[in-house]
């Protein structure tokens, strides 16, 4: 049995230790906001927070997260920060097919909580682990920049 915290709730799983965190989140807990885009840690569609750090859940064996705190997009959906990101992505037109977006939102939140006032270059660097094939990234960069402005003061570490 592996015990960890998922979106603030203590959970236990009997999945084999080699099972991917991504599959456990999606199959056992039916949290569909974490997507699989490549399965090799290249695209970021499966981004989650592991102990507050942005990670690709497709690369994490469940056996390695005993006691860890896992947060998925569902775990931040009710937050003020998410609300700002939601509005900013909408306003800037950062969403097209949407498949990369939950991961991109997680990466945006991770970036802003580290660096509440990023430059354009810092935003590009911050989301560079997340692939998007539709937007050419510029409108996503705009969205993050807008979220930084709109959410001024919100992004400081809890």
């Amino acid at each position, binding site marked *: 049995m592996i015990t960890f915290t998922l979106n603030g709730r203590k959970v236990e799983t009997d999945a084999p230790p080699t099972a991917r965190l991504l599959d456990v989140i999606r199959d056992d807990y039916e949290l569909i*906001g974490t997507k*699989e*885009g490549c399965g090799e840690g290249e695209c970021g*569609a499966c981004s989650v927070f592991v102990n507050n750090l942005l990670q690709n859940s497709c690369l994490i064996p469940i056996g390695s997260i005993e006691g860890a705190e896992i947060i998925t997009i569902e775990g931040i959906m009710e937050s003020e920060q998410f609300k700002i990101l939601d509005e900013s992505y909408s306003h800037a037109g950062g969403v097209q097919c949407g*498949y990369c977006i939950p991961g991109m939102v997680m990466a945006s939140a991770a970036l802003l909580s580290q660096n509440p006032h990023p430059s354009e270059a810092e935003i590009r660097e911050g989301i560079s682990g*997340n692939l998007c094939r*539709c937007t*050419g*990234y510029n409108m996503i960069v705009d969205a993050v920049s807008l979220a930084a402005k709109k959410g001024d003061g919100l992004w400081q570490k809890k």
Partner: protein
Amino acid sequence: MPRKDHKGKVSGQLPYISDVKVENMVYGVLYRSTIAYGRIKSIQLPDLPEGYEAVGAEEIPGPNYVKIIKEDQPIFANEWVNYIGEPILMLVGADLNILYDLLEKVKIDIEEHQAIYTLEEAIKQKSAPGVTMASYEFGEILDTITSIELKAHQIIEEEYDTGYQEHVYLEPQGMLAIYKDDEIVVQGSMQCLYYIKNALINALACGDDDVRVVQSPTGGGFGGKEEFPSMMACHVAVAAKAVKKSVMLVFDRSEDMVVTTKRHPAKLRYRTALDRKGNILSMSVDLFLDAGANEGLSSVVLQRALLNSAGVYKIPHFHAKGYVLKTHTVPNGAFRGFGAPQSFAGIESHMCHLSNTANIDPLEYKRKYLVKQGDPTITKGNFRDPILMEEMIKDLLNTSNYKKKKTEFQQDNQQNQRYKKGIGTSLFLHGCGFTGSGERDHIKAKVKLVKSKDDQVSLKISNSDMGQGIFTTLSKIVAKELDLPYEEILFPYPDTKEVPDSGPTVASRTTMIVGKLLERAAKKLKSQWQTGVEQEVVENYVHREMIPWNEKTFTGDAYPAYSWGVNIVEVEVDTLTGNVKLEKVYANYDVGKVIDDRVMKGQIDGGLAQGLAYGYLEKMTSKEGKIQQKSISDYGPPTSLDVVSIESKIFDNPYADGPYGAKGAGELTLIGGAPAVQAAIEDALQTPFQQIPVTPEVIIDSLWMKEGEEG
């Protein structure tokens, strides 16, 4: 106003096909050929545990081919295999891990035959039976060209190669067949519901009411989900029928990269006669497309490639011939631009090299040949609408400060040994909608608006929103015509039980053709509006009379309208590593009229990112029939660090038969990227290239060659 699908997408709660689970659902995995070309002699299955079954050609109720155009693509290969990765059978069961284990134990004996692996080999063997799948020839008669060439000052011959391009839609392909006693419902990631429905009726040998196709939220398409999903739909539907359970087939990224369609690799040969001053006297183009193992849509792709083979230019005495050639490699298919990106990369490159011969700035040289309103097309059609290219070029020259930069860069490059800057341009167009009379004769689009008792209006069309934003743009058109708030217009994911066939979501046709039909339907509904009453209106496609298209002679108006574009790109090339860094990208477009600024900007930035990357970044190769790039990191699509912000502007030029004047926009934005980036690299290095992608390896090789020649 937000996009219609914003909420579900930003939160991740909108279920794509891989997020769906239904009762009594099993998974399917495909056993694929490991041989490029051979005859299947025997198939040996392992002992299958309870609940696990194999489904192959014998289980197909109808004929064993995926209905596209030709009948040459088996659903499950059972006699011959024609490429590595061709599906032979499917194993079906509840646990994917068990299925993958079983897959390893399937034994198939294939008698191997001599395969054709490359386009070069296919060109050499193009007269052999079955190698040329389609060919077209048109333009000036060759005798005339020969006599012009005899008097010419010089003849320039160039050969130009373009590589594969992989779609890399972020959501891999996925399809689910839901088994019911009286129908099979096929649901998944797709662009063309009725292509799939027709393929299913054929494969299942069933009636119109026995199958139903429903689009799931689609995580990007770019043409990759145009014809390919028809095959997956046949796989899951045949399997569901056979095992009487719902069957899910979802590819992981490596399977998706290795077996799904790609942009056709192409070879283009130019032969141009010039006078003493470098003016063009005549031009002949031979164009070869690598179809892969099945014809698929390749003949139509070739048509578009040929129709664009003279670019945006009025070339005196132009002749073109093209071939679709078979190789024993993964079938190639639709990809945003559909043959046009290969042709524009080729012709823009060739024109640039001709300008060097004439010793004239490339852009100035190209402008001399720009088509104007009223000019004939290369197929004796007519450019009947206003053309704003000159205006757009002048504007972009100012915005980008082109002339000043061109001089400055050359001076700077003399100082800087390692880093070289360059600036390049591309001029391009895109024919909107289906080629020729396709809309009138084949598609015959029909749209429907349904009003409920509580006066809610729903769009009933078969077109997919795959991210390009038609939920938003088409809803806006209907809302505007009906004077209703945009938020109140309903546009559910299409289901063939509910929607008429308004055609596939391809060819930059949705906004222009379907949007216009919806505008008319909304006007009609408004004139008949009865509050509190259920109402329905239907509109059918009406063809604009032009010079009739004749596919045999390749003459007439190939498209009802054209969208246009100009790109200017600045790069910095590191001559030590061959790395290319984008510095600035400028773009002007004429798409008639923009329906939604944000959606349009999304198309510009996304299309350009793909088009630029096609020119210097994205490289896919095949070796002895095997795709060599099986992962995203091997292939290398652009990240946020590769792209720069793009300065773009739209020029209004309303088109009478588009909604509010709108023409096609989705594919246009990709086309200019590669030729502009190639031209910029050439400007930086003062070296011509005869291929895309111009990768670091290509650059370093050319620098070595140049050094060798000079040294």
